[in-house]
């Protein structure tokens, strides 16, 4: 494994880079600690998107965040997909590589969405085998992210937080803890978000995600289309009090605002990280 050319500071706030902002980032080189992109958007063999990523990669640490590996699916792992991720990792030397703790297809049909797993012993054993398989195929540590969900399965036997912690413990993978998703699920399923935080081992957490949700429906929906909510900022503050600061990412995927808005959200996270560091020192 090659070392990344630009190390990621242990505690810095980055921004999820989306297509509408690529040209601006290339021309203005804004002050951003690091960028994360969706891996699949760079699975092409060549072309302008990949060339732009190469260019940005020269000046910023990069994280690859996959949305399509379908870690929890019962179909065999897609080794073509995995091969494209390997190729992209070799090309961009990312500091972090992550996927979601979910399933996305069955019976040969991909559903291209982050679908919830039943938190059962069977699902836990299955997803742990798959995480291990991906880590073996990539030859590196994977980060696995907790997802939002809008329903809970009646047959579940394990609280979500225990399931997430067990995946890390059993496979040695790291966690990408999405604090917004914890908040959304706490509201949707009626559990205590702080009890969730308390169950996750600090040394497993390699990254934190923050995003905005939509509260206009029958439950909270993780749209990544709004500013981080005040309650989520507060939960984030308690998370870094508990774990210590972690690389933190602002995600925004629908109704994408001007880049400066993302920078302001990242600056808020950065200020909270620095405040924590000052208190800790």
């Amino acid at each position, binding site marked *: 494994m090659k070392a990344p050319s630009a190390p990621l500071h242990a505690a810095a706030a980055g921004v999820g880079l989306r297509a509408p902002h690529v040209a601006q980032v290339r021309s203005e080189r804004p002050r951003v600690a690091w960028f994360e992109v969706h891996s*699949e958007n760079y699975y092409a*063999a*060549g072309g302008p998107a990949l060339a732009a990523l190469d260019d940005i990669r020269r000046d910023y640490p990069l994280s690859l965040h996959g949305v399509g590996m379908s870690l929890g*699916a019962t179909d065999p792992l*897609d080794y073509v997909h995995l091969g494209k991720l390997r190729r992209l990792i070799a090309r961009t030397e990312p500091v972090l590589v992550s996927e979601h703790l979910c*399933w996305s297809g*069955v019976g*040969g*049909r991909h*559903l291209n969405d982050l679908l919830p797993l039943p938190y059962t012993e069977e699902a836990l054993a299955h997803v742990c085998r798959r995480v291990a398989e991906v880590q073996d195929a990539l030859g590196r540590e994977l980060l696995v992210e907790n997802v939002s969900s809008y329903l809970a399965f009646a047959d579940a036997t394990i609280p979500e937080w225990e399931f997430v912690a067990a995946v890390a413990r059993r496979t040695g993978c790291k966690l990408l803890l999405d604090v917004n998703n914890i908040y959304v699920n706490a509201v949707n399923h009626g559990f205590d978000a702080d009890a969730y935080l308390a169950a996750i081992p600090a040394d497993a957490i390699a990254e934190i995600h923050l995003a905005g949700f939509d509260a206009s429906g029958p439950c909270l929906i993780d749209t990544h289309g709004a500013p981080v909510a005040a309650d989520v900022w507060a939960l984030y503050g308690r998370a870094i009090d508990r774990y210590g600061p972690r690389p933190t990412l602002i995600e925004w995927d629908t109704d994408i605002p001007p880049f400066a808005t993302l920078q302001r959200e990242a600056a808020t996270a950065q200020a909270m990280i620095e405040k924590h560091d000052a208190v800790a020192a």
Partner: protein
Amino acid sequence: MPSLRELQQDFAGALFAADGTAPVFAIVGPAIATERIAIYRTAMFANYRKALGATYAAVRRLVGTPFFNAAVDEFVRAHASTSGDLNVYGDEFGNFLAAYPHARDLPYLPDVARLEWAIDEAQRAADFTRAPEAVLAALAAVPPEELASVRFHLDPSCRLVASAFPILRIWQVNQADHEGDDTVDLDAGADALLVRREAAGVSLSQQAPGEHAFVAALAAGAPLGEALDAAQGAAAAFDLGATLRKHIASGTIVGVRIA
């Protein structure tokens, strides 16, 4: 209790069931099952509408978003996505539109879709460094008696799209940044387009019928002799030397394969 696989099969079935149909697996709070599965159903179809809307922007502009979204929903039901990379989904949309009853009055629509897919593929194709002098030198070294059996490598981004309709003009006036006259004469004649990614972006160039048949044959892997037959079949006055020189110089042809 269903197995993980059975649960996932039921979940997928519920996503494609009619709106209002309850899932068959048990969820916490059965009264909200229909409403909550509908959230996933809505999100899934929205993902596909957005992804195909980005690829097929001119088609969407031609038919309007409500029509487009309804067509995408039908397409998704008929053509399963098989990759976790949504960027490669939708190659069959042109063929789907050709058989879509609601698009019957827009006979050019499938070809506009095929053109947009070709552009999308060209954007994602492997990078290639052009070296026309090396191609010419390799060709010059071939003994004359072997020329007919020579095959060529084309730039990986090359795609060929032909239509009985003026799809280039239709596509151009349906770009978001198009200004000025947007009328199209549907009887303006057939198009034979070479789609290729250049340094500055994807180019769409109109080809003569013989030229199009020639490049299409080369793209399909035919040897020079067969490609020449195809070109002459399409246009008796086909000029082999000029066409070869043009496509080597412009970088359509990037390599020579001698059997």
